[in-house]
């Protein structure tokens, strides 16, 4: 058999193999009429190793035989096959975070009081591990509960210089108008112009409608990110 053909056959066998293959095992792939001997295989494997030195993967020899593997230097890209999609935070977590942002320093009991439901330790732990909140002190009431506040990392993540740049409550009421562009400067301007309207809107029955449209918009955004 021609050396080029033998090389290609060995390549095809090895690239589709699930385990390393020894020279003996490789020889087992050939029939007597293929006229392939141990030395031929050995030589072809050696040539193959040379052939792949400049590639993104290489032919290496381990204790149990030869196998192709991706090169170490490209692992940062290859590993991304197995990257998990980032999870989404729960509504409860976001509400807790929002309260810590706008009402800091705040105790867990106060958060629970406002939200009307218990705040799980898991949520607080997640936010702390993310370095977005931390305990900034203790309230001098029975039990001396921790007071929670946001961190520098929180501001960095959202590209804020300070919490001042967070939209004010009145601006939040008008959030529909501000999106899709989350430009704080635009928000400020709009808030100033439309502040009258905001208040009047606030009193209407449109709450649900507003909610839905926001959710929808949020979903759209999420999808477009996934695409």
């Amino acid at each position, binding site marked *: 058999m021609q050396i080029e053909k033998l090389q290609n056959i060995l390549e095809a066998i090895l690239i589709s193999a699930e385990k390393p293959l020894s020279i003996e095992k490789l020889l087992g792939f050939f029939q007597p009429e293929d006229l392939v001997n141990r030395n031929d295989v050995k030589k072809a494997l050696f040539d193959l190793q040379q052939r792949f030195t400049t590639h993104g993967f290489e032919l290496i020899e381990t204790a149990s035989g030869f196998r192709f593997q991706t090169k170490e230097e490209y692992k940062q890209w290859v590993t991304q096959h197995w990257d998990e999609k980032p999870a989404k935070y729960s509504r409860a977590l976001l509400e807790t975070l*929002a309260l810590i942002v706008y009402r800091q320093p705040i105790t867990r009991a106060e958060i629970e009081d406002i939200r009307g439901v218990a705040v799980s330790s898991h949520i607080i732990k997640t936010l702390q591990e993310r370095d977005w909140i931390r305990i*900034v002190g203790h309230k001098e009431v029975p039990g001396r509960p921790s007071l929670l506040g946001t961190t520098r990392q929180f501001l960095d993540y959202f590209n804020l210089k300070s919490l001042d740049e967070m939209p004010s409550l*009145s601006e939040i009421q008008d959030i529909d108008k501000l999106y899709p562009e989350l430009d704080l400067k635009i928000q400020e301007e709009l808030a100033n112009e439309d502040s009258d309207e905001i208040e009047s809107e606030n009193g209407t029955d449109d709450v649900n409608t507003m909610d839905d449209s926001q959710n929808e918009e949020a979903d759209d955004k999420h999808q477009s990110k996934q695409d």
Partner: protein
Amino acid sequence: MSNQDTNQELQKRQTTPSQGELPFAIVHGEEISAPPEDLYIPPDALEVFLETFEGPLDLLLYLIRRQNLDILDIPIADITAQYMDYVEMMRNINLDLAAEYLVMAAMLAEIKSRMLLPRHEEIEDEDDPRAELVRRLQEYERFKKAATDIDELPRKGRDNFDTSVEVIRAPKIKPEPHVDLRDILLAFQDILKQVDMQKHHEIEREEISIRERMTHVLSKLDGDNFVEFQDLFTLKEGRLGVVVTLMAVLELLKLKVIDMVQAEAFAPIYLKPVSGLDEYQDEP
């Protein structure tokens, strides 16, 4: 059921041919009492053989192609007779005969009888009685061929195989969920709505800057350090900044989160977190 029974059955049928039918078993003027040549096979094998047909169209195509006949010009009487023999065979060996075969038998008989009628050459538009059958046969044959073509396409797992290599991976990093600033705003807005409905104005409009400064002040007081009141202020921030810090300190005092200590009048004022009080009680 034996071959013999089958033959008898065939014979019986052939002795009473319907009008105008050309009995397939009369060839060269002689009665043939045996099934067609290629049916001289054991019943078991016959069953397998018959089952290889994908239906009446497939069987008809087989009969036509076997004799190198032109599909556009089928000798309908011959083919009908042959077809009926096969159907009869299937029945005789108790093969589960699909209804479609009988429907086709009826169609063939109908075509045959129409073929018997004298053709009026003056009527130009007269259809060939076989036209519909021929159309269906051709249509079926195209897809029979297409099926073969598909089967011949190189395919994964038969002709081409996936690659499988060892992968050198980097340590796995679990990505943190992404949050839009907007998500926080929406969450807070929801809270406001809920609160509006329940307790009125528990959360009032409030300058977030004071809230932030409260955190800031608290973080400066964090740990073991006493902090001098004046150190909390940054003059660069101007009057507004100073006022905000002052309000933050007052708010913290009101909340009993921090405590203010002054040894004597005009002495420096120190601030400390309430939580640290016990530890520093003995100090000046």
